């Protein structure tokens, strides 16, 4: 059963499978294992980012398409929920309508961009997506009556998903059974489902054609495959999943703004996560997203502790000062690319074959 759920594409080597299992178990039990607002928040973000990174890997890793508009689709999903919830008031109908609307807009936009640019060379696709994404960012900040501009939108969700809602008045392992817990599991299980769908897709005949196109698109054409059709479908699917990840983020944060969904920084983070995890392996997105989000959220603390420990050593304590966390993050990235040029999962898989 597990094998068919994973579409026959298990993580690979035992060590790798063990690490992935550990990550999944930690995420599944995060509210109980690591109670506390901040750690649960980190776990929820990891779930969402895994989906976002996996959907980007479908484009970059499996199909060989470079897009800079992935955060735009992510943002469209989030803004769908945000706009619907703030204009219609909290409710499941607003959530469903906003989410569905966001997904539809993302799909339509992805289709138009792909149709207009994938017929020509891949580099044009990258540039066009960059242009469209920038224009979209400007549009969102200009249409502040609808989008809240640079401030973004804060809105309320159905009561069931708020901390004030308690569905049982006892505590389970010391954790309050409230709406926050419900929204965490809504996000966790949605993320698992979306990930498994993507895993199924890349291991299907369709996914094999995508890989063939990435390897040698002329050859795929000479076998009779219309590569443009496949590329368009891949970019639409990827956009839809990104928009769904945006919906999840909007549910979790109850806030949507340009910085959390549309920024170019986030786009680059996604790229980095795909590369660290391993391009062309869905499991890479699990590791890439987990490592990156953890590093971003906790590197400062680790360094603060390290700096305090080494307070006697003059130079070392300065180097380890928490303010230098970005430097260390950069160093971590360079080292990981140096030692795992094909990503962590790519490295593991290569040595098995």
């Amino acid at each position, binding site marked *: 059963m597990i094998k068919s759920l994973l579409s026959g594409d298990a993580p690979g080597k035992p060590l790798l499978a063990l690490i992935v299992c550990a990550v999944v178990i930690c995420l599944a039990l995060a509210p109980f294992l690591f109670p506390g607002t901040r750690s649960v928040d980190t776990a929820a973000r990891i779930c969402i980012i895994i989906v976002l990174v996996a959907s980007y890997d479908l484009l970059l890793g499996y199909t060989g398409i470079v897009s800079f508009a992935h955060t735009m689709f992510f943002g469209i999903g989030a803004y769908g929920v945000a706009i619907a919830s703030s204009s219609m008031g909290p409710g499941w109908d607003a959530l469903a309508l906003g989410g569905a609307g966001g997904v539809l807009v993302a799909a339509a936009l992805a289709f138009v961009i792909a149709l207009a640019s994938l017929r020509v060379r891949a580099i044009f696709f990258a540039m066009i997506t960059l242009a469209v994404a920038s224009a979209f960012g400007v549009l969102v900040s200009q249409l502040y009556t609808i989008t809240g501009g640079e401030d973004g939108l804060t809105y309320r969700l159905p009561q069931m998903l708020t901390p004030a809602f308690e569905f049982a008045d006892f505590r389970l392992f010391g954790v309050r059974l409230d709406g926050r817990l419900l929204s965490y599991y809504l996000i966790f299980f949605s993320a698992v489902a979306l990930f498994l769908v993507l895993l199924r897709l890349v291991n299907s*005949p369709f996914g*094999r*054609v995508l890989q063939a196109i990435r*390897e040698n698109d002329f*050859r795929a*054409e*000479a*076998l009779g495959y*219309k590569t443009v059709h496949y590329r368009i479908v891949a970019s639409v699917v990827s956009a839809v999943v990104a928009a769904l990840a945006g919906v999840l983020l909007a549910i979790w944060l109850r806030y949507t703004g340009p910085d959390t969904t549309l920024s170019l920084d986030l786009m680059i983070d996604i790229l980095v996560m795909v590369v660290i995890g391993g391009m062309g392996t869905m499991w890479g997105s699990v590791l890439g997203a987990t490592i990156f989000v953890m590093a971003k959220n906790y590197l400062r603390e680790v360094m603060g502790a390290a700096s305090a420990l080494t307070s006697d050593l003059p130079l070392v304590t300065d180097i380890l000062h928490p303010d230098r966390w970005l430097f260390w993050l950069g160093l971590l990235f360079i080292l990981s690319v140096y030692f795992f040029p094909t990503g962590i999962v790519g490295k593991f898989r290569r040595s098995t*074959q």
Partner: protein
Amino acid sequence: MGETGETLLSLSGVHTHIGQYHILHGVDLEVPRGQLTMLLGRNGAGKTTTMRTIMGLWQARQGAVRFAGEDIARLATPDIARRGIAYVPENMGIFGTLTVEENMVLAARRSGLNAERLDWIYSLFPAMRKFWRWPAGQLSGGQKQMLAISRAIIEPAELLLVDEPTKGLAPTIIDALAEAIMALKQTGVTILMVEQNFALARRVGDTVAVMDDGKIIHTGTMAELGADTALQGRLLGLDIGGGTA
């Protein structure tokens, strides 16, 4: 299926440009059904460009490419492939990160893998069975070439284009390849093949066309060219005795 010997593919007055370069200067070529036509000529004569033009990977600027009576010169590559032309390019173009099996499944686009046909391919190339689950990128050069040919014949094609299959291969492997090509001919498939190795070309070819400077400068039977060393010397610049193996 038509009669053996009638023209299956014909190029007339084909001009192909690659960027600013004018590569084919009016190629006229006829490929008879059920035979193996060798396309010979020195490097840069335009042999590969001719193959790619037939396949639609370069568009002919002038001229007609007729396949089974239909002009295919303006069709897109996938549509040409779907009309029954299979192509084994010079660089083989295998999908290296996919397994041998996956490469074959992709090639069997219309009807999926056919067990009988697969057995036949295993008999031509036993290595395919052995390395069935290997990533194709890890095969040796000869095995990759066998995979490239297997991929082209897993579905019955009417015309097989093979571009320099022996390039960079060891002599024993070339022998095995020649055997396979002879066996393939027995099935009645029409083949157009580019080859630098004249010994092999003489062994497997039925008819021959020689190119130079983007034109066909000689056509005839392989037997005739094989017997006429003076003609070989003039057309191909070969030494007496049939060239190098």
